[in-house]
Each structure stands twice: as C-alpha cells, then as structure tokens.
C-alpha cells in the first residue's frame, strides 16, 4: 500500500508540474499579453512600456521560474483589473464555490447511491423505471432553465426560499438542489449497472449459498465491488462541482469561482485566470488521486497486496 501511495503521489506531482507550465504558457498562446493589457486604445509604445514593466520581454523559462517561485510562496500575483493580490480575490470567492459544490455533491451522492442499489435489485421493475425517468430528466433538462423555474416556483410563487444570493442558509437550497440534480444521474446509473453485474456474479452466489442474510450479501459482498467505478466517476464529478458553475452562479447571483473565471477572461485579467486554472487543476489532480487511493483501499488487487 505504501509503495502504491508513493507512486501515486509522484505521478500527481508530475501532472501538477506539467499543468503549471501549460497554464503559464496559455497566456502567451492567447496572444501578446502586453497588447491585451495596454487595451484597444493603447499605442505600440504603450504596449512596449507594459512589456518592460511586466517583464514580458524576458525569456519564457525565466518568466516561468519567476512566476512558479512566487506561486510556491503563496503569491499568485496582482489582478490587473482590481489591482489587488489575486490570493485575496480568490480567497473571497473560493469558499462560496467549495460549500456550494461540496453540498451539491453530497446531496447527489445521497440520492444516487441508494437509488442505484434499489434499482439494481429489481431491474426493469417499477422503481428502476422511475429512477431511469429521473436520470434522463436530470441529464436532459438544462440547469439554467431548471434554476429559473425553481426560482419562479419556490422563490416567487410560494416565497419559501430567497430568490437569489446566499445571505441566509435558505439561499443555498435551490442552487444546491439544481446542481445535485444534474450531477446525480451519472452516479446513479453507474451504481445501478455495477450492482446488476456484481449481483449476477459467482461470488455473490457463493455468499448466498453460505446462508448470509440478503442485506449482508448486498451491502458487504456486492456493494464493495460495485462502488469501484463509482469512486472514479465521483472524483471527477466532485471536481466539476468544485470548479464552480458559471450558469448556476449567474442564475442565482452568487459570487463564486465560476463567475470570477468568466469575468476575468472577459477583462483579460490574466493573473486571475492563470491562478484559477492552476488551482482547479490542482483540485482535480488531488481528487483523482484521492479516488485512486480510496479504490486501492477498497480493492486489494489494485494496491498489489502480497
């Protein structure tokens, strides 16, 4: 297990390194940053001045090492638009998105797992069909429409929850529900198909032949095998939810990371964009590594017990 852990961590580190180079290079691929900063009204001399002031005239490698050195000490640079440290701007937006995404993930999982298991117990049964309908709806209905409808019904007509913002905890209910509704179907379907396959396996038959009660057969013999693909999928889903949704944050007027990324792109606020890409990539790498480690803990064949 220790060897596996170390190997995974080395891989994760290498991926992070590659991502940092790419996200840094992205800015130069998108065009000359000096011209972008100087703005459409800026002359060639303005752009030249910006180039020297920001150090864009230095070799790429030097600029990268300079930047990554600052990043490692926690300095993500200054926002060109706000003229504030990037860490402060992101620090005010990230928690909102983390709470929103985390809650939506937990809600989606809390529905997907039991529903997937129950649907698999009687494939083509009434519950399975209802679950399929729910899954197809969740995947097909656009979340902006669902969000707007939810605001109309629960915010405007009934007045049960605030129509926008996160001033009170009730404000979280609708955005979390809408996010969860779109994340749930994939997790539910993968749980269902995994359970159906595993329930037909020889070792589940062995477990039943031993005289184990049905609940124990399903939960300790079948589920442990069936969740392996779910763990991998859920790690990616959580990454998607934690990177913030531009649509949901716009519909519910939430100042999260998704909106910040979008607005910064429009303003050509490169340091902010760079930092967001870097942070989200690191979150993805962290999550997939955590998913792999969880699977290794669940399945002795992966961790190479021997």
């Amino acid at each position, binding site marked *: 297990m220790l060897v596996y852990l170390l190997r995974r961590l080395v891989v994760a580190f290498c991926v992070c390194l590659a991502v940092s180079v790419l996200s840094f290079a992205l800015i130069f691929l998108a065009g000359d940053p000096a011209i972008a900063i100087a703005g459409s009204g800026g002359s060639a001399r303005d752009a030249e001045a910006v180039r020297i002031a920001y150090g864009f005239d230095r070799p790429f490698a030097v600029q990268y090492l300079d930047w990554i050195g600052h990043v490692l000490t926690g300095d993500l640079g200054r926002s060109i638009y706000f003229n504030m440290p990037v860490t402060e701007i992101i620090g005010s937006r990230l928690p909102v998105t983390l709470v929103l995404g985390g809650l939506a993930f937990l809600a989606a999982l809390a529905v997907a797992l039991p529903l997937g298991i129950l649907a698999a117990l009687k494939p083509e049964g009434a519950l399975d069909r209802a679950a399929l309908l729910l899954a197809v709806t969740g995947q097909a209905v656009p979340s902006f429409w669902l969000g707007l409808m939810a605001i109309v019904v629960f915010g405007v007509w009934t007045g049960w929850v605030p129509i926008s913002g996160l001033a009170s905890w009730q404000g979280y209910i609708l955005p979390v529900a809408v996010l969860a509704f779109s994340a749930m179907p994939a997790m539910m379907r993968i749980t269902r198909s995994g359970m159906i396959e595993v329930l037909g396996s020889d070792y589940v038959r062995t477990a039943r032949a031993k*005289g184990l009660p049905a609940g124990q057969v399903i939960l300790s013999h079948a589920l442990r095998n069936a969740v392996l693909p779910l763990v991998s999928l859920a790690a990616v889903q959580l990454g998607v939810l934690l990177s913030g949704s531009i649509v949901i944050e716009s519909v519910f007027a939430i100042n999260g990371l998704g909106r910040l990324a979008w607005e910064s792109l429009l303003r050509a606020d490169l340091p902010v964009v760079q930092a967001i890409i870097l942070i989200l990539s690191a979150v993805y790498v962290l999550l997939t590594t955590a998913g792999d480690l969880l699977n290794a803990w669940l399945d002795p064949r992966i961790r190479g017990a021997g």
Partner: protein
Amino acid sequence: MSEPLLDLEDLRISFPAGPERLNAVRGLDLRIGAGETLCLVGESGCGKSLTAMSLMGLLPREAQVGAGRFRLLGRDMARARPRDWAGLRGRGLSMIFQDPMTSLNPVLGVGRQLTEGVIATGGLSRAAAEARAVELLERVGIARAASRLGQYPHQFSGGQRQRLMIAMALMSRPRLLIADEPTTALDVTIQAQILRLLAELQRDLGLGLLLITHDLGVVAAIADRVAVMYAGRIVETGPAADIFNAPAHPYTRGLMAAIPVPGRTPRGALLPAIPGRVPGLTGRLEGCAFRERCSVAVPACAVRAPQPAGAHRTECHLATEAAP
C-alpha cells in the same frame, strides 16, 4: 432406516422461452441417504447444474420449479419460499461451485469469507469461527493456515482456491454437500488431488455428497451410486459397480464405450461417439428422448418406458424386457 437427506420426486424446472417454455428438467427422481455419495452424470445442458441450483434455492428468478415430492434434510421444500431456503443454506446444506477463480469475492479477505457464514447462521464468535477455519484449512491441505486468513483470493492458486471453497462449505458442518463439477476448471493434476480430498472428507465426516460431473473417471473413483441424466430426466440409476459392469440403458452404454481404456483401446483408434444431437427441450417431449440417437430403438420407444422399482432402475423398454 432414517429419512434420506434428499427425497425428490418428479422435479420439473422450466424457463420462459418466447411463446413456449423450455423444459430443462422434466420429471426427475433423486434420493440421497446420509453418508452416501451420489454422482449425477450427463453431458452439458442436460440439466444437472440446474438440478443442483434448485437444491440450494439459487435458480434464476425466471425459473419455474415444481415437484411431486421435495424433501430436503427433513423439510418439505415443494412450495418453498425464499425465507425457507435461508433455513437450510449454511445450516446443514452446503455447496461447492464449478469455478473457484470467480466464486470467491476478490475484495474481501479469505478469513472473513470463511468465517462470516457460521457467524451469521451458527452464532459462533469470531474467535471460535477463526479457530474452526484454521482447522479446516489445514484439513484441506493449506499450509500455514493461520497466517493466510488475512490474505486475499488473488494470492491463492486455482487449486488452493478450490480447497478454500471446500473448507468454506464445510465450515457450517453440513450433512449434505453439493459439488457442482468442482474440478472442471482445474488442471488435470490438481483435479485428482481435489477429488481425493473430497472423497476423504466425505468418508471421515460421514457427509451426504451429491457430486455433479460429466467425467466418468471421477464417478468410478468415488461414487456409491450413480444417476445418469439425459435431456432433463434420469435414464438410469443404480449402485456404481452395477452401472459400470452392466450398463443397461443404451445412452449409458454409449458413454461407457467412449471412455478410452489404457492397454485395451488401440492407440490412434477413433473413440466411438454417440451419433446425432440432444433434442430441443422446448414444448412437450413424447416418449424416450434418446430414441433419435439410439441404435436399438423400436417403435415402442415413442411411449416413455416405465421405471421398475429396485436398486438399479433403467428407463428403457429393452432393458425392462431383458431384465430377469
């Protein structure tokens, strides 16, 4: 004489197959006494594994089972519900499956898989169950048993896994053990070891053993009685020695003729095979199912032959006439 472990009369198993039904087992009688080894032989698809699964209540959901009499370990299972099977599995009734590579759960330790059954059904403490597991693992020939309880199935070879399966089946101290082709998935050299082990355990523990196989060599080695199955029915049954010395049913004779005997079968000679193929089992099947392939069939074979009472019974008109 005490009640047999299994007393089965007119067992029928069918599956929906389009507009008709596939009648996989078509009226099967089977008795197994305490401490007796019965070998059920027949070719693939004749219904032997389905019969075994029906004895464990492990048939697929869509299977329909009926029986004139179905007494198992003294209980009437003719109209058994899932709850009733829970009273037998791991409580006197155990089973060993065909493929040990897929029959063990890959993500759970073998110690846990060995002990969880008796902890659930027999109320044993974990320590007592582990002590019994170590004892049985040593009995089935796994060295350093205690240190291997924490290992996982993929750390055992195929033969060792089947030994694990046997130990697991014996954990609950069964009176009737069903072994469904326990050696088919193993190397030939391992097959002999596993069979010798099964035969020893059967004798030492006084088990009733239902061994399902299509290997007549296996049958000759360990059977007390043999039942030959063809197209969902038992066509001949009797003491092993009788069946081997004087097979009465043309199908049994065909099977025996197909076994090469070292020294007697000429090298390179073609082994005799039974011509034709197994009849389809959809819908009703009148008369003897073997008559299309039988070299001695007579017009009377269009009607099923009665089975005379006795230790050696054969479902064949000709055998009945020939009997003294």
